[in-house]
C-alpha cells in the first residue's frame, strides 16, 4: 500500500469501516511509515476532540425542563393513540396518562437517568455472558492498547490493572484483558477467576448518575451487577457470585480502577 492510498483510508480505519484484509494491509504500512502514523494520530485527535466538544458544549445540551416533560408527553401521546382505537379502554389509559403527567413531571428526569444506567448494566451483563462465558461476540475483541489508540485513551490504564487483594474467599487471578463491543457499546474488559467463578470488570465511557462507591443494580437472571463511577467512566462488576460476594469484589477493586481513571 502507498501513502496516498493509506491516507484515503485512514478515516474509514478510525471508524472501523474497513474490511479485515484492508485493515491488515493498512496496519502493516503504518508499522513502517512514521509520517502516516503521525497523520493517523492527528486525525484520531481531531475525531476525539470533535466528539468531546460536541458532547460537552453547554449551548447544545437539552434543558432539564425539556427532558422532564419529554417522557410524559411521549407516554401521553402513546395513550392518546390508543384512545382512537378503543374509547372504553382509553378512559383508563387517559387516567393513567394524567397520573403519569403529574408523577412523571417530577420523576421523568430521574427515570431517564435510571433507565440509561439500567441499559448500560444490561449491556455489561450481556457482554460478560457473551464474551467471558460463551466467547460469542459478533465483533472480535481487540487489545486494550489498540482500543486506547483508536477509541478511548483511558483503556490503556487497564493493561496493568492488578487483581484485587484482600478478598474473603481466596485469591482472584486475571484470565484475560481486552476491549470488546456489545450492542454497540465499547468496553475495557478484564476477566478474573475468583472462588471458582468468572468475574468481569467492564469499563465504558458514561456519566449516568451513580456514585463513586459500588452499588448493586437490579439485574435480569442469575447475574449480579455492581456499578460505580470513576471520572468520566462507569465501571461494572458482573458475576454469578452471590450479590454479597459481587459487592465485595467491587469494593476490593474500586480503588484500583478509580485511581487509574481519576483524570479520564
Amino acid at each position, binding site marked *: 500500500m502507498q501513502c496516498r492510498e493509506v491516507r484515503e483510508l485512514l478515516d474509514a480505519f478510525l471508524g472501523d469501516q474497513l474490511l479485515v484484509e484492508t485493515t491488515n494491509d493498512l496496519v502493516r504500512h503504518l508499522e513502517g511509515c512514521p509520517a502516516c502514523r503521525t497523520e493517523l494520530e492527528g486525525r484520531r485527535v481531531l475525531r476525539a476532540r470533535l466528539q468531546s*466538544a460536541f458532547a460537552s458544549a453547554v449551548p447544545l*445540551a437539552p434543558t432539564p425542563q*425539556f427532558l422532564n416533560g419529554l*417522557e410524559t408527553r411521549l407516554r401521553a401521546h*402513546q395513550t392518546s393513540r390508543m384512545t382512537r382505537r378503543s374509547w372504553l379502554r382509553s378512559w383508563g389509559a387517559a387516567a393513567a396518562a394524567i397520573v403519569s403527567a403529574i408523577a412523571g413531571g417530577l420523576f421523568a428526569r430521574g427515570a431517564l437517568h435510571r433507565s440509561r444506567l439500567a441499559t448500560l448494566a444490561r449491556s455489561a451483563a450481556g457482554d460478560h455472558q457473551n464474551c467471558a462465558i460463551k466467547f460469542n461476540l459478533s465483533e472480535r475483541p481487540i487489545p486494550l492498547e489498540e482500543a486506547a489508540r483508536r477509541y478511548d485513551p483511558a483503556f490503556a490504564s487497564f493493561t496493568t490493572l492488578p487483581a484485587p487483594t484482600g478478598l474473603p474467599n481466596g485469591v482472584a487471578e486475571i484470565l484475560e484483558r481486552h476491549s470488546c463491543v456489545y450492542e454497540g457499546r465499547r468496553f475495557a474488559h478484564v476477566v478474573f477467576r475468583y472462588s471458582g467463578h468468572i468475574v468481569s470488570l467492564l469499563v465504558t465511557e458514561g456519566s449516568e448518575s451513580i456514585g463513586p462507591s459500588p452499588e448493586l443494580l437490579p439485574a435480569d437472571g442469575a447475574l449480579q451487577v455492581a456499578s460505580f463511577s470513576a471520572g468520566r467512566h462507569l465501571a461494572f462488576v458482573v458475576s454469578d457470585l452471590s450479590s454479597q460476594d459481587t459487592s465485595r469484589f467491587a469494593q476490593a477493586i474500586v480503588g484500583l480502577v478509580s485511581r487509574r481513571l481519576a483524570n479520564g
Partner: protein
Amino acid sequence: MSEESTWKAFEAEALPHVDRLFRLAMWLERDRAAAEDLVQETLTQALQSFHRYTPGTNCRAWLTSILQHLRSNRRRAQNREPIETGAIEERFEQTLTFVPPVPEHLTDEDVLGALRQIPETYQEVILLCDVQEMTYKEIASALNIPLGTVMSRLHRGRELLRVALGRTATSTVKTREML
C-alpha cells in the same frame, strides 16, 4: 406487544440517546425551540413505529435516520432545500491544493468554530459519521444519498475542516502574540 411492554423496551433502547439526538438537532437547527420540536417529533414517530426496530441493532442510527427524514421533509415544506453541493465541490476542487496538518493544540471552541465555517452538507456527514458514529451505509440511508456521495462528502468535508482549523489556529496564535 402490549402498550406497557412497548414503552419499557422503548425506554431502555431509545431514551438513552436523547442527549446526543438533541445536540445534533440543536446544531443543525441553531434554534432551541425548533430543535425541541424536531426531537419530540422524532421520538413520537419512533415510538409509533417501534415494532419496526430490530432489537440489538444500532438504535441511535435508527433514531437519527428518522430525525433526518423529518428535517428534510420540513425543509422541503418550507422551501429550504440544502445548498446544491455540486458547484461548491467543484469550486473547492479548484482552490483546495494543500491540506494542513491537524494543529497540535485544539480547544473545543476551535473545533466547533471551524466546523461551523464549512458548508452545512459537509457538517452533516461529518457529524453523523464522527459524532453519531453511524456507518457509511446508515448515513446514506438517513440522508437518502448514494454511498459514494457519503464517502466523497466525508473526504472533502474533513479536508475543509482542516483548512478551517488551520485558519483558526493561525488567528489564535496571532491574537496571543498581540496580547
